[in-house]
């Protein structure tokens, strides 16, 4: 087994809601009390991304998938836990030490209308990261590089003098991908890269991402809510619920035999073309707030198989016979 390219260990991320010290203090029943509240976005996640694979993280809004993407990229600092790149811990690096990793790791965002600077031409947009990360390159070398990435994403290099607003959504996303590829990264974090696009354009961008993976030997951490895309694109899938990974498996295994009750419900909710009627597993209630996490298994309030143990004890990841990893007491006890 080779060591993973990127590894997340015991990652936690909390966002403080309570404000400054004075805002936290309340006067109640004759005494002062200090109250602190936080959104528990990620609660102990371990993930390994292997070289050359596309690890997909799926889940519904608020499950912490985007927070994982941002924490891995160093855009957020973890509240606890570590992020490793190769054999180097990177979440605690400062200043110049981060730079080489910033070049090796690039990010593609969801909304290509917001992620391109409207006041820069495409040429400037694509040159900037190269100038920054490769100051050794001469002007014409930079230009050649820009031309090469533009061609590789299917954007005519003659359009370099245009601005972002002159392009359609699909073309903008191509440009955003070109910008990520311009510095020859090894690892790309893509946060819902096709959610804002139309169906026929989604296929184009997905194909482009797969081509880039093949020709440039890229590794992806792919964040999405769209399970159909995962089934097509992912090497492995991590299903998240309320800041925890509830199931992690090879894509084929997960879709053929989902084990966790939440994964089963999520898969059944995909509207399939061959269905003539909605056909899904009904869950009780709604996703609880990540401010006050439920005790025990975070899913127990909605789970049809929950028992007393699920309400008390947090389930750990266990390996199943099928090769998947599941955090569920019912699976562990053979009840499911």
């Amino acid at each position, binding site marked *: 087994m080779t060591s993973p390219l990127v590894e997340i260990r015991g990652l936690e991320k909390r966002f403080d809601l309570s404000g400054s010290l004075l805002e936290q203090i309340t006067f109640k029943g004759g005494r002062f009390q200090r109250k602190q509240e936080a959104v528990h976005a990620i609660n102990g996640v371990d993930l390994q991304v292997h070289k050359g694979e596309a690890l997909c993280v799926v889940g*519904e809004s608020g499950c912490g998938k985007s927070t994982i993407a941002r924490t891995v990229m160093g855009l957020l600092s973890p509240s606890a836990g570590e992020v490793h790149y190769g054999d180097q811990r990177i979440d605690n690096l400062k200043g110049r030490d981060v730079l080489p990793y910033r070049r090796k790791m690039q990010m593609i965002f969801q909304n290509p209308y917001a992620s391109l600077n409207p006041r820069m031409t495409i040429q400037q947009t694509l040159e900037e990261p190269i100038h920054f990360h490769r100051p050794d390159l001469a002007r014409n070398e930079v230009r050649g590089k820009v031309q090469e990435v533009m061609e590789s994403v299917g954007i005519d290099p003659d359009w370099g003098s245009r601005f972002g607003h002159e392009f359609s959504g699909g073309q903008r996303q191509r440009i955003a991908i070109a910008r990520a590829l311009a510095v020859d990264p090894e690892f790309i974090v893509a946060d819902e890269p096709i959610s804002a696009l139309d169906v*026929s354009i989604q*296929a184009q961008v997905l*194909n482009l991402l797969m081509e880039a993976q093949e020709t440039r030997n890229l590794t992806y951490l792919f964040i999405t809510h769209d399970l159909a895309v995962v089934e097509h694109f992912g090497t492995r899938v991590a299903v998240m619920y309320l800041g925890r990974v509830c199931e992690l498996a090879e*894509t084929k295994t997960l879709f053929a035999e989902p084990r966790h009750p939440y994964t089963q419900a999520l898969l059944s*909710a*995909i509207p399939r*073309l061959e269905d003539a009627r909605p056909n899904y597993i009904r869950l009780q209630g709604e996703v609880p707030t990540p401010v006050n996490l439920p005790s025990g298994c975070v899913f127990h309030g909605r789970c049809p198989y929950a028992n007393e143990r699920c309400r008390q004890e947090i389930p750990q990841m266990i390996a199943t016979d099928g090769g998947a990893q599941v955090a569920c007491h019912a699976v562990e006890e053979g009840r499911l």
Partner: protein
Amino acid sequence: MKSDTPLLEVKDLDVRFAVRGGDLTALRGISFSLDKGERLGLVGESGAGKSVAAFSILNLIARPGYIAGGQILFEGKDLAAMSERELRKIRGNRIAMIFQDPMMTLNPVLSIGTQMVEAIKAHRRVSTKAARDIALSKLRKVQIPSPEKRLDQYPHELSGGMRQRVIIAIALLLDPEIIVADEPTTALDVTIQAEIMALLLDLCEQENVALMLITHDLGVVSQVTQRMLVMYSGRIIEQGPTREIINDAQHPYTQGLINALPQMGEPGARLFQIPGSMPSLKNVPTGCPFHPRCDFATDQCRKTMPEYVRSGNVDVACYEVSNLIEQEKNMQEAGS
């Protein structure tokens, strides 16, 4: 006995937007009908004119848009020629509408109960008490937990799925004949989307309400509707029974849309992609608007817009399809 006149019949509808530099044609020669209790899906990508079509049914096209020609017959009366006063009796009362974003539809400063009572009183002369009772019964119908409590709550106190349930309850308040739903679940998570769609389907069947569902999601259309229209660049290019189109689409665009879905491709293989993107209304190509992206385009396609031909129970506007039908006919004649 089935009456001959459909509940709603749209004939040759043209909608234009008067902008600087001439009119933009948003809808061109749209014709379709909707029977009592029937569920019709309207599919297309952004810019195809789906929402304009939905809005025009209620004659809600705001300036600079206007209905340039054609008729919208609701029970034989032309909505396009009606005064605002007459229209107000139909909107919300006989034909109700559900929009994409529930937070934009609900008034944030009024309680749910107030908003529902207001809607009832606008159309019926009933006491506030009686109106509240109707509101309560509709909230029960959409399976909202503790409906009495919800009447006094404000929209921000409800989750997204719950808000969309309230919107559906409001649409049902006056027992309409038609519900027009414009992307009702796009803003929601997959599991919630499945619930809301199943609910909408059940209600339409129970109450025998006709549904016009606008969506970009072919899976949803397949699960919920009986007939579907496919729109491209302001035209209907294919319409017929949903199953027939999903299983055996005729128009190259519809085929492309279906084949571009990740669930159709082999996992990891390159997805089918339609090259290019939908033309802007400012420069719609001559002839068939799809010809620049179509593999089968001929000179005829570039020059004139194809008429509808019938293939099975499906109406298609495509020369390739009509030529194929012609050939088949000739072969049969030669054979006999």
